[in-house]
């Protein structure tokens, strides 16, 4: 498993007519095999962080390292999972799951085996020949995960992967994500708008400030992943603590629980 590190990373891009500073001197280290959740108000540069880590953006200042090596482009074993799943509607479930392998020139036979395993792992093996348009939102998300599993990715970067799902499917998928991590032990960065999701899936929770995104707080969450955590008092306490921190950032108003999930504009 690999580590991920942001060293004093800033990113400024040309918006419409003016320079926009999306991230400001962000320093963060993610240990090998550690699942980290990132939460913060809309437009705080959370998605930018992931694109930088994936090698799709280059920092204006500072540098990003994966496994000790500076990120200069797309890395083979990094998987990026986007809010709308990044699935291609014209490819079947199997072809979507195997796309990363295909692009890397893995032979058809080998691809078939790896894809079958990956689809099995996320529980959609029966839909290998269907198209994404025929799947429910939850199954599409499973497919996006299957692509990362088929690639044998050791670093999963997830940009609000569950934000479009209804509450029940969402909890279901959170368990899938947790199960995958517990079995595979990959390094994970999960960007989310949901306090509960951050607490359920992040061993550490990083709170970013409004634009320009800056590290505002890091919350340790050692009980993450323990059995029955979601319904334990410790879980609720952690959520309350996080809500308080976010209120300090102006992201939520104290006392407005239960939280209303917000659809983000990326």
């Amino acid at each position, binding site marked *: 498993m690999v580590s991920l590190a942001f060293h004093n990373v800033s990113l400024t891009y040309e918006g419409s007519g003016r320079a926009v500073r999306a991230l400001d001197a962000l320093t963060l280290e993610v240990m090998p095999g550690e699942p980290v959740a990132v939460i913060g108000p809309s437009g705080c540069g959370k998605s930018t962080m992931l694109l930088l880590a994936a090698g799709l953006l280059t920092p204006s200042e500072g540098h990003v390292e994966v496994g000790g090596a500076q990120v200069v482009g797309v890395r083979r074993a990094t998987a990026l999972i986007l809010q709308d799943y*990044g699935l291609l509607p014209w490819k079947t479930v199997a072809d979507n799951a195997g796309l990363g392998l295909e692009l890397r020139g893995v032979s058809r036979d080998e691809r078939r085996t790896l894809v079958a395993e990956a689809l099995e792992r996320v529980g959609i093996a029966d839909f290998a020949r269907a198209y994404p348009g025929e799947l429910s939102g939850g199954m599409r998300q499973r497919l996006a995960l299957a692509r990362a599993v088929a690639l044998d990715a050791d670093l999963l970067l997830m940009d609000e992967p569950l934000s479009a799902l209804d509450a029940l499917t969402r909890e279901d998928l959170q368990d899938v994500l947790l199960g995958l991590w517990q079995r595979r032990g990959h390094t994970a960065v999960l960007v989310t708008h949901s306090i509960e999701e951050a607490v359920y899936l992040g061993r550490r929770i990083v709170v970013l400030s409004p634009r320009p995104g800056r590290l505002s707080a890091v919350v340790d969450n050692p009980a993450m992943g323990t059995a029955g955590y979601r319904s334990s008092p410790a879980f609720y306490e952690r959520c309350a603590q996080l809500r308080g921190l976010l209120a300090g950032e102006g992201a939520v108003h104290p006392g407005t629980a239960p939280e209303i999930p917000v659809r983000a504009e990326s």
Partner: protein
Amino acid sequence: MSAVRRAAGYVGATVVLLVGWWALALAVGSPALPGPVVALTAFVTVWPQLWPETLVSLARVLVAMALGTALAVPTGLALGRSARADAVFAPLVFLTYPVPKVVFLPVLLVLLGLGNAPKIALIGMIVFFQILVTARDAAKAVPHASVLSVRSLGASRWQVARHVVVPAALPEIFTALRIGTGTAIAVLFLAESIAGSNGIGWYIVDAWGRIDYPSMFAGILAMALLGVVLYELLDALEARVTRWRSAGR
């Protein structure tokens, strides 16, 4: 839609058309508009002379559309995906697109003679521009998330084009092709009737000149048939290459 329902639809539409035609011919009462019985009898009678002309016309449209599409799709997609190329060539396209290409027919006839070349060039040019503009817009509209996700998997520019841009643009390209078919056949008629000595367009005008109205109408029927066949071919091709669109519906 199942094949049976589709066939039933065609039969129903044909019956309505035939009855309307028959009523209209009766009302007009001119030999220039024969009724369906006269025209269809003539169609069967003159078919031995008509089918070679139909084949010539079909070949011209097919070659012209294939050439126009083959040139327009890559160009249009490239313009849509490259801001730099677009900045240079888009003004050129927008200046030339509204010019009715059919006015260049005399020029083409002078330059390319009276054979297949000027007809194919003219139709190809018209199809080229229609597909070019559509492909460009379709490539521009490709969802950024699709491109990002495929690039994050390590796709090169060409792989992005092959796995994302081309399939995303296909449905719109087919729509443009279908609309282009109508224009292509209309221009084919014009080009064949003005110059040359074969093709259905020539056949219709020739029969007209001989005041052989039943034969002229047989030619018109052949032209209509040509349109239907092309349209159906495109439909079948589209269903094949954009299979995902009909899945689960």
